[in-house]
């Protein structure tokens, strides 16, 4: 989780990602951020997020995104 918070924190230092639950709905993240997150998650966790998992629900909070990463790692 810490690695993920680090990735997100670099993009938006002003946001508290541990508590914020509506990153997409509140337009915190834009398409630049999403592509960055996908690339960073691939680099740091070694998991590729497939197209059908790139959804607002999975990116709306750090915890949702972390669950997704865990799930993808378990599937490997």
């Amino acid at each position, binding site marked *: 989780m810490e690695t993920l918070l680090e990735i997100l924190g670099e993009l938006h230092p002003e946001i508290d990602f541990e508590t914020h639950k509506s990153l*997409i709905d509140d*337009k915190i*993240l*834009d*398409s*630049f951020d*999403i*592509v*960055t997150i*996908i*690339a*960073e998650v*691939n680099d740091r966790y070694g998991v*590729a997020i*497939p*197209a*059908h998992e*790139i*959804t*607002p629900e999975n*990116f709306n909070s750090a915890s949702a995104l972390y669950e997704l990463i865990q799930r993808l790692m378990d599937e490997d």
Partner: protein
Amino acid sequence: MDRQINILEYLDNIVKICPEKTAYANETDELSFKTVYDNARAIGTFLHNEGRYKEPIVVFMRKHPDTIVAFLGVVYGGCYYVPIDNEMPRHRIELIFQDLKPRSVICDETTIDSIKSFDYDGAVYSYNEITKTPVNQAALDEIRDKAIDTDPIYIVFTSGSTGRPKGVVANHRSVIDYIETLSEVLQVSGDTVFGNQTPLYVDACLKEIYPTLKFGAKTYIIPKELFMFPIKLVEFLNKYKINTICWVVPALTLISGLGALDKVVPQYLHTIAFGSEVFPIKQFNMWRKALPNARFINLYGPTEATGMSCYYVVDREFALDESIPIGRPFKNTEILLLTEDNRLAQKGEQGEICIRGTSLTMGYYNDFERTNEVFVQNPLNTMYPELIYRTGDIGKINERGELVFVSRKDYQIKHMGHRIELGEIEMVMNQMDGIQSAACIFDNDKKKIIMYYVGNVSKADAVNYCKEKLPRYMVPNLVEKLDVMPLTSNGKINRLALKEMYANR
């Protein structure tokens, strides 16, 4: 047939034919041609009542069908629209206001508060209020009667190399010329359903706005947020049966590059026009495989010649080391390929792409100096005044007689005694498996080539690949991996940002 002299004749005509049909829509709102017509004329009347005439009117609204109505309303009032958007950096908007010194800004409820934070003391009009103005048809008729086809319609601002944006002024004549010939190439009809991607503050959105009026077609404004979620984006295209798109290449590679085409196919799409950047063939082939029967059209052109000037309808397979031609000029446009000594380039020889024809815009607003640098006398004509626009792009004619884009003039560098096209290095890199996008800049002081790339490839592998594929003098001296390639508002790779990144590293 009456000769068309005003862009609004498209709307005046179509509203008689299909008033109730939807013209512009998004997920929640639909505007019929009748609504567009009535609201635009209300705005025109309002501006007339306020004494606004033949002057720039800033339209500061979100990306929404109403914004298009505001554009048309400004033209009904005999003025010209200048679109700006909350997405633009604040500093850029400030520079635009300094250049323009506008007396009026039209806002919607999403911008009416932020306009107060700018150093602007002119009138602020609320879209929802001014569309309630009772239409004064006699006044609008008088405005139309006095209008001529070299009156401006809009000013859009493009990035200048110095950092100060340039306001390109386009008139009725050049836009009509463009819409007529573009519609033919795209084969627009009343059945066309456009999916608009580009922001409404760039000239790219002309492709949807005006053919929709000419043919009674339909345009969906796709929410910007969807360009984060490739599957949802394709589902949007399917839900609204979108069949024609004119997108920047990065929007298309977002879908193909993240693997969305393996899961879901845009089943109604039959016409895919693209531009702004070279389409990496690997990505392009994914699209062609997914939509084997669709027409793919490469468009090329500068804002200074009203949008697009050349087109190529893809009619063959391309190898990974080829690039898709930009083809041939639109009807009523001529391309001159001029060498450095101002003669026409021979077949295969490189020259600067210069444009002549009605599609030329009027130049840059409040900037005769920069206008005169690029809107120049045709050097092949020494007998009478005739302007051409020098694009600064280098092209050549291939063995098939097609025009091919080579690179920007400023990307042609001298390095270790060789003339190098940075674009050629980029093309080679884009062929490598795992590379999504590559861009090079040149450090003129230290004589170093710097390459930035995005992709699932290590720096070492990228360098080795370059060494394998390129002559020694073309191998980048410094390679940096990025998560995302910075883009300009026109969807082009932002090389200025790369240079800044390099300078600040």
